[in-house]
C-alpha cells in the first residue's frame, strides 16, 4: 500500500498475482501444477510489463 501510494503502477502487482492464479487454476486441477504455472505466468507478466516500462521510460527521456 505504501508503494502504491508512491506510484499507482504498484497496484498492478497484486492484480497480476490474481490473474496468474485464476488463469492457471482454470487450466489445471493439481494444486502443485497450478502454483507452478501461476508463478511462471506472474513472472512473465512482470517481465513483459517491466520491459514495456523500460522502453517507454527511455523513449520519454528528455520530453
Amino acid at each position, binding site marked *: 500500500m505504501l508503494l502504491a501510494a508512491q506510484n499507482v503502477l504498484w*497496484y498492478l502487482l497484486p492484480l497480476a498475482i490474481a490473474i496468474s*492464479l485464476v488463469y492457471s*487454476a482454470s487450466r489445471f*486441477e*493439481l494444486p502443485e501444477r497450478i502454483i507452478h504455472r501461476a508463478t511462471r505466468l506472474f513472472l512473465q507478466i512482470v517481465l513483459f510489463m517491466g520491459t514495456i516500462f523500460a522502453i517507454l521510460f527511455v523513449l520519454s527521456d528528455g520530453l
Partner: protein
Amino acid sequence: MADPRINLKNPNVAAVLAFLIPGLGHWYQGRRFKAAIYSICVLGTFCWGQAMAEWKGVYFRWQEFEGQNRFRTRDRTIGYLSQVLVGLPSLPAIIQWRRYSSDDADGRDFTKLDGPIDAAFDGYAKLDSVNDAWEGPVTGQIQLSPDDSGARGFGQDVRGHFRGKLTGDAPRDVEFDVAGLLTIAPKLLGNGNVTITIDGKNRAKEYSSSKRLLRCRIVTKRGEFDAPMGELEGTIPRAFMDWYQVPLEDDAVQGMNRRLGRRYEIALLFTWVAGLLNLLAIWDAYEGPAYGYGDEVDQSEGQPSTAPPATAIPTPVAAAVSATPVPSS
C-alpha cells in the same frame, strides 16, 4: 470433456453457484483448493477495487437522452457488463437502477421531507437575532419531521430541533428549533452536490452520494408562529441502501475523478478484471480445467497437454512415442 478423475457433480448447478459467489461452485464440487483461489482472488480484487473507489465504483445505468443533449445521446455503464460477472456482490446495482429510474422513487423533489429524520448533522449555521448573533461550523444531532398542523408559512411544513456544538473560533454548545425546510436532497441520489453555500465562501463544489444536503431555517417561537432567525445548512448521512450501487450523477463521477485521480480508474479496472476472472471460474466449474488434470506431460508451452492413462503417469519418453504419428502404408 473433463478429466474423469474430476467429479463435476451437476455442472449447471455448479456454474450458477460459481456465478453467484465466486468459488461456491467449486466448493459444491468438492474442489476446495480451487474454490479458495477463486473466492480470494476474485472477491479480493473486486472488494479492493470497490474500497479504492470508496465503494462507489459499481453501478448500472442504461439510459437514452431523447433530444436533451445533442452531444450526448446515451449514458451506458459498459463496464458493468464485466462487473456483473462477479455475481451477487454486484447484482444490487440492477435493483438500485430500477429504484433510481422508477417514477415513484420519491420523486426528485428537493424540498420535500419523506419522513421523520433523526440523524447526525455536519454543516454550518448562521443565527442573527436581537439577543444573539453568531455563525460557524456546527456538528450535532438533528431531528426533523413533517408537521401536519399547518401553522407554518414557508416551505414544506416541517419542524424539528438541533442540538450540538458550534466549532471554530468560539466553540460552545448550541441548541435551537428548526423549521421551514428549504432544501433536502432526495432519499436516493438525485444530485450529489453537497456544497455548503451560506458561509459565503466561494469553495470548490463537493459531491457525495452517501450524504444528503439539508438546508432549513432556524426559528424561534413567537406566539403561534415561528419567526425565522437564521439558517442551517449541511449534510446528514444517507442510508446505506439508498446510496450503495445507486447510479452516480455525472457531477458526482467527475468529483470522484478529481479527488481520487488515477486511483479511481485503477479501482474500476480491479472490478472489471474481477468479473472477467470469474468468467474463467464459471467455465471451469461447468466444463472442468481447460488443459487437463495437471499431471500430463507438456507438448509445448501454452498448449493443451496429452492426457495420461488414468492408471499410470507416463514417462516423457513414452509420451513422446505415443504422440508420434504412425505413417499409414
